[in-house]
């Protein structure tokens, strides 16, 4: 390769990296300051340490805050509220405070299990003053959203967190409901019977579990299951999502399958033809039923993976005896806290990452001279691949993810260090640089390949089997290991590009052939 070609390729590579780095790091206003083009880095979703928690506090019915107590009139105050911590308990509703505290503690444990299934990088369920439950989940904001530079992303993240908090905290048992007060059923002999929904079992949810009918009116719903405990119909409720398709799957017990067939036959004859799946007063799924269902499982399409997962978690918990003991007040607000790592934690993390990268560049240049500079450039490209992947795959950045990315970068550098050491050994053995490089890459191919094969499969295992932060680490490790291997071979190409025009075949990039006396 001629010197000109070598220079052109190197310059083109440097330019490509510079352009990618510009869009990765710099946000700027466009269209006369009307819009803002946020950088790739600022569009990466962040963990609670860097973007804070979305939190809410749920209070049992009959428990009010000091603020709410303050606005009560004197008559109501005198009517019997007991102060517990900073909360007030209506003694008519809860005569035994200790029992109430025990029930709240038990419900907090159930909620903890439910939120544990959500796969958050971090979350907490805390019982405050023994009587209320405070739930905190990561906001999942991007840096731009956190700083109010991307309102749309902020609102999407907040909606997702609010929906999770609302659905997963659903209290009460699982019920299958209809908006029809009565349903006319025709049997095989042509006889007509009437299913009176309003008289089926003791259903306390009638006035609470409401739906909007086709005329946009809010109407009551009634049990469609003949007053049965429908939790016994199901073995489990799971959710699955592939790409943008999300489904909720109900797995029936043997008896449940029969009962559900009966129930769907009833629903087909109803005027709305809908079965509403409620946990307590919260409608989680609706099923438009046009024919009787006689299958071992039922899969229903959900609008998105978050909705499917939230509904499945709440319903599965109710199915498995995890219905909350107490009735709770509706969630009035979901607040967001500042980043637990400090207001500018994300910015400082970014600066620290740049510093670490700069340190690596310095180390490589000092150790491998000209070649070190080239490897540094490729290491920089590696970092950009990670940044773009984090953004495109919506991977939430936590310190664990940053550490994993650093490990992948270390893998890339170690792979190159192994081959450089081999080149050095061969050069000192008397070969030309070109021959040493060729031989060295051949010698270490299995070392490097073994390392990457083991790690990519380990990373896939972590990404698929683990949950939460570890799964995120696994996913970024898959990308990091693949990128490391591809860029390792790109470094080989760059060896060729920069060493080809060199005239002295025995001296290059700090390496020098050792000439023995008998040469």
């Amino acid at each position, binding site marked *: 390769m001629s010197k000109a070609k070598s220079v052109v390729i190197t310059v083109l590579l440097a330019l490509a990296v510079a352009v990618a780095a510009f869009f990765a790091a710099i946000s700027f206003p466009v269209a006369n300051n009307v819009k803002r083009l946020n950088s790739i880095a600022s569009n990466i979703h962040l963990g609670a340490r860097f973007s804070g928690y979305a939190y809410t506090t749920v209070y049992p019915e009959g428990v009010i805050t*000091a*603020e709410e107590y*303050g606005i009560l009139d004197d008559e109501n105050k005198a009517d019997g509220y007991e102060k517990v*911590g900073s909360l007030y308990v209506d003694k008519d509703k809860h005569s035994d405070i200790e029992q109430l505290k025990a029930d709240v*503690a038990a419900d907090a444990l159930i909620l*903890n299990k439910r*939120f*544990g*299934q959500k*796969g958050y990088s*971090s*979350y*907490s*369920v*805390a*019982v*405050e003053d*023994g009587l209320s439950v*405070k739930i*905190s989940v990561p906001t999942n904001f991007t840096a731009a959203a956190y700083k109010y530079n991307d309102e749309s992303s902020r609102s999407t993240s907040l909606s997702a967190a609010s929906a999770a908090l609302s659905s997963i905290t659903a209290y009460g048992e699982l019920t299958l409901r209809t908006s029809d007060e009565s349903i006319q059923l025709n049997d095989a002999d042509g006889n007509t019977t009437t299913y009176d929904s309003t008289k089926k079992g003791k259903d306390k949810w009638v006035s609470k579990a409401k739906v909007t009918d086709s005329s946009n009116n809010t109407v009551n719903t009634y049990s469609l299951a003949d007053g049965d405990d429908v939790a016994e119909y199901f073995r489990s409720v799971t959710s699955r999502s592939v790409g943008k398709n999300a489904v909720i799957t109900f797995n029936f017990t043997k008896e449940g399958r029969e009962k559900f067939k009966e129930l769907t036959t009833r629903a087909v004859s109803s005027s709305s033809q809908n079965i509403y799946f409620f946990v307590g007063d919260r409608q989680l799924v609706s099923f438009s039923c046009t024919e009787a269902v006689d299958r071992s499982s039922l899969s229903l399409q959900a609008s998105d993976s978050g909705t499917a997962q939230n509904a499945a978690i709440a319903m599965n918990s109710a199915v498995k005896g995890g219905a909350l003991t107490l009735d709770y007040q509706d969630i009035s607000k979901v*607040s967001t*806290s500042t980043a*637990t790592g*400090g207001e500018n*934690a994300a910015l*400082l*993390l970014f600066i*620290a990452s740049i510093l670490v990268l700069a*340190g690596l560049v310095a180390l490589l240049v000092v150790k491998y001279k000209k070649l070190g500079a080239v490897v540094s450039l490729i290491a920089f490209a590696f970092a950009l691949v990670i940044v773009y992947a984090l953004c495109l795959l919506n991977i939430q950045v*936590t*310190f*664990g993810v*940053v*550490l*994993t990315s650093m*490990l992948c970068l*270390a893998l890339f*550098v*170690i792979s190159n*260090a*192994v081959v450089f*050491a081999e080149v050095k050994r061969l050069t000192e053995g008397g070969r030309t640089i070109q021959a040493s490089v060729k031989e060295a890459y051949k*010698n270490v191919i*299995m*070392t490097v390949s*073994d*390392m990457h094969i*083991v790690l990519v499969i*380990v*990373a896939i295992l*972590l990404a*698929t*089997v*683990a*949950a*939460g*932060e*570890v799964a995120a*680490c*696994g996913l970024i490790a898959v990308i990091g290991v693949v990128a490391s291997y591809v860029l390792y071979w790109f470094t080989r190409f760059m060896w060729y590009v920069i060493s080809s025009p060199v005239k002295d075949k025995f001296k290059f990039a700090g390496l020098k052939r050792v000439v023995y006396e008998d040469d």
Partner: protein
Amino acid sequence: MTKFKVCSKIHLFIIISVLFIAIGMAIGTVCHFCANGFFNYGDEFSSYKCVTVTYYTSEYKDADAIKPVCEEALKGFNPYEVSYYSDNRMGGEIVYKYSTKTDSAKLQAAVDSLNTALDKNQSGLNVASLHEATVSEGGSRAITYASIALASAAAFQMIYFVFRYKLRAACSALLACVHNLGVFVALAAVTRIPVGAQFIAFGAAVVFLTMILSCVLFDRTRKNFANELYAKTERTEVVDTSACEVRMISFIAVCALAVAAVVFGVFAAVSQLWIGALAPYALALLGLIACFYGALFFTPAVHGAIDGVCEKLNKSTKSGGKAAKPAKDKN
């Protein structure tokens, strides 16, 4: 450092590791029953006391306006986390979190005086309240799945190494993973550094780094075994030589990662202006210490020992076989 032979000191390393892991487990177990758990659970795992200040913009423009009043009243108590919520219109909330050891009576007195200061206009709008929060133990599902993933990862690594490097290297690699993870857990239990949800991710990182460094060592050993130069050298010595050859790479890699963790830690502490912010980075350093000790001393020593034992067994089997030959030969 690169000339230091480790294989002959296998007994020493085993004693150190076993002792260390045993001490860690013992301290963790004692703390599990007598203190706040096997680890010192922090972050989202720790119970806390908090003072919540609710304010309205009609009296206080924003959080910055009310902050000095709060800080004056709560002077003398050190919150480990302060978070702000504001809807940018009506008002907001400031939450000061304190450790459970904070004296409730004194804090309540401070909150009462804060309420007096906040209610200067007697509107009753701005209120501070003290809460005691007990965090439910969580993360069990994440821990279970992560453990399954790590166990399957280690099992897969062993199977792969059986094919690529022989069973003895595979056993050494598995031991290296278990050892490094054990040392990491022991270090976390002994040092009582607050452990958060990221601890599991750090465990995965320890396994990941152990695998990288094991690959480098085993590959060098395999090459040296195949090298004619070492044909007549004791296998344990070959492992020692290989360990010396790759030691610098392992050393630099672990040190570079440690420097990175320190840099991140310093920036985190600056961001939060709180020494406690260093906890996750200190945990990461503990993981790196475990990998450092494992990669430089324990793994090569164990690999040398296992290889030596297997070789001796091989030889004795072979020599046993030769001795048995005449007996088989009935002619």
